[in-house]
């Protein structure tokens, strides 16, 4: 199978910059600039005609929605004696997801790496037009199951904003609790996967065990191990009464201690640290230029996090320590994740401690960006997640999203240039990229 005939020259690549290629362009041509960290609020600048970095970007966008395989990052053609393209995937590549990587190489060294998606496209968002919010939410949490809480929270926030609905304050707390639990799960899972790639068998087994414990706690508190339905009215029963919260808090404090002890041992393992240090580096300028988000961005010295950027309840009442690293390599990304696990444990502890006694005063949704159209954004485990929802007559008119994986794929491809093939798994896992999020 040959890849799509689409390449960009370095000059064009410049055109495919953060605002143009990666900022997500809503369907009716309004242009949303999502990468403006200076702003305290979501910026949506409606313009009569789309901004025109045009043909290149049009090609890019066709690639993003067209049939597979489609490019998830721009790719240069590399030519030279002995170079060839090695397609890796879509099955049997040691990654539990289906996707493909086109590796241009002449042997050991990777000259260019192109992630290709579309194998898992389930057309989830397109098929939502005409559905009710509640039915749509059930599909959206099944878009990427391991980050379901973030997706549902962002979607619900956008839908509430579009409909001008207020939400009971306690619901916002429940959503935040679910998201922080899932952040812990995902970061611990990344640690386990990296340890697995580095053949740290005991470390990986123990990290996987810790991740399993978090899943079980989620199952106990929310009735579902992956929190499906748990954030919706009519979902499985939640167990968050005072005795349940106390038990949850106790278990989580034990998990937090486990995690600290585990990480200390990882830090002692020089071979482990050496393996990920300076692997797949992303420099600050590229991260900003390409619009990277989440731990990827914070690992190269940009302290940007939606939980602090647009603080709503409960985050505006809680203490959040935001980590930052500067080296931008796989180690830096892992260090950010490790500190975020601790920060999330601390957030959860505070939440369980100060849990609102009743539903609380209804919290007004953020104002719609256009009539009947709202944005919702949350900090998902791998970064800034944006949903854009239009509502007509109480039903959904359109739903689109800019996911953290979409923003970070190009940085992974960039970091893999000139890497050796054995770096692949360490690099991939350290970004926390999901094909499920881009194949929607």
């Amino acid at each position: 199978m040959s890849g799509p005939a689409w390449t960009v020259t370095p000059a064009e690549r410049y055109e495919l910059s953060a605002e143009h290629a990666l900022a997500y362009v809503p369907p009716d041509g309004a242009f949303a600039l999502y990468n403006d960290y200076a702003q305290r609020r979501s910026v949506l600048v409606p313009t009569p005609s789309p901004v025109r970095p045009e043909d290149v970007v049009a090609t890019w966008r066709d690639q993003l929605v067209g049939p597979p395989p489609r490019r998830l990052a721009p790719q240069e053609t590399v030519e030279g004696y002995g170079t060839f393209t090695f397609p890796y995937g879509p099955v049997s590549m040691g990654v539990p997801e289906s996707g493909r990587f086109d590796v241009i190489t002449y042997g050991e060294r990777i000259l260019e790496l192109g992630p290709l998606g579309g194998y898992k496209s389930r057309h989830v968002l397109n098929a939502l037009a005409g559905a009710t919010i509640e039915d749509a939410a059930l599909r959206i949490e099944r878009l990427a199951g391991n980050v379901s809480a973030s997706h549902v929270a962002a979607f619900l926030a956008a839908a509430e904003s579009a409909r001008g609905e207020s939400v009971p304050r306690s619901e916002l707390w429940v959503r935040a609790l679910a998201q922080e639990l899932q952040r812990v799960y995902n970061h611990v899972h990344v640690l386990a996967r990296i340890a697995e790639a580095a053949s740290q068998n005991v470390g990986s087994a123990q990290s996987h065990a810790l991740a399993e414990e978090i899943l079980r706690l989620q199952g106990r508190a929310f009735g579902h191990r992956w929190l499906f339905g748990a954030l919706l009215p009519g979902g499985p029963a939640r167990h968050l009464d005072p005795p349940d919260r106390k038990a949850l808090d106790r278990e989580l404090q034990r998990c937090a201690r486990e995690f600290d002890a585990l990480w200390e041992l990882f830090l002692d393992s020089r071979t482990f640290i050496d393996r990920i240090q300076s692997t797949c580096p992303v420099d600050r300028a590229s991260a900003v230029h390409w619009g990277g988000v989440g731990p990827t961005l914070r690992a190269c010295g940009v302290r940007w996090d939606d939980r602090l950027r647009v603080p709503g309840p409960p985050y505006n009442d809680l203490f959040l320590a935001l980590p930052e690293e500067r080296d931008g390599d796989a180690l830096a990304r892992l260090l950010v994740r490790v500190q975020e696990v601790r920060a999330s444990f601390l957030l959860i502890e505070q939440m369980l401690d100060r849990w609102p006694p009743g539903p609380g005063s209804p919290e007004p949704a953020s104002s719609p960006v256009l009539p009947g159209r709202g944005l919702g954004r949350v900090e998902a485990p791998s970064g800034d997640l944006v949903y854009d929802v239009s509502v007509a007559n109480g039903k959904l008119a359109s739903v689109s999203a800019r996911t953290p994986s979409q923003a970070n794929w190009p940085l992974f491809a960039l970091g893999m240039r000139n890497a050796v093939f054995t770096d692949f798994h360490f690099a991939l896992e350290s970004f926390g990229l999901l094909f499920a999020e881009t194949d929607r």
Partner: protein
Amino acid sequence: MPSWIERSWTRGILTTRYPRTPASEAETPATARAPVPPQGAPIPPSAVASCPVEAISPRGVDQGRCIRCARCLTQGLRLDGAAESAVSARSELLLPAGGGTTRPTAPLASLGRSLHLFLVDVGSCNACNLEVVALANPFYDSQRLGLFFTNSPRHADVLLVVGVPTEPMVEPLRRAYEAMPGPKAVVAIGACPISGGAFRGNPGLRGSIDELLPVDVYVPGCPPTPIQILDAILRLRGAGRREG
């Protein structure tokens, strides 16, 4: 200085005793169980209307479609039934109105002892993949039962399929199946491969895995728990061999 060995000792044994003992409460969250029709009574029409994936009809509840959203629980159904739910025929996933199940318990006995497993994701949300991969973690420790994950279909005895089959994955799936040496078995994991799950009817998708491969075991759920997946795989071994 603490060491890995010391840590492993202080952690103690985490591994479940399943299948020697039944699955514990911690291994069985509420949504691991299927919604069952009320005993000796017809299914209320409001329950039929409440289901977002048309899993409920006056005839019964189709577990193969159910995504465990728990909505029908306010309409007279309850999450109940056995924690292990794997069956060998699609029709057995229908829980008929009026109560009672048709779930068989006999092992299928098509394969021998030690099994090599190959996972193919044909369009999943990752929850099913991760539940399968979780079998290797110390809590389930599938190796103690002689179950091993392999990265090549050439070494595999059992094909584990997760996700709703997308058009571009049809060919890779078929090739993976053909590359497996016989005798071989296929396990469909989750509502997605069985019926399309939450995405049934979306464009570009095959309706179910049945159109593509002969399926030996179906595991309903969204996602099924690791114990349910383990149970399904163990059913492929002959009687008396469940415990490895």
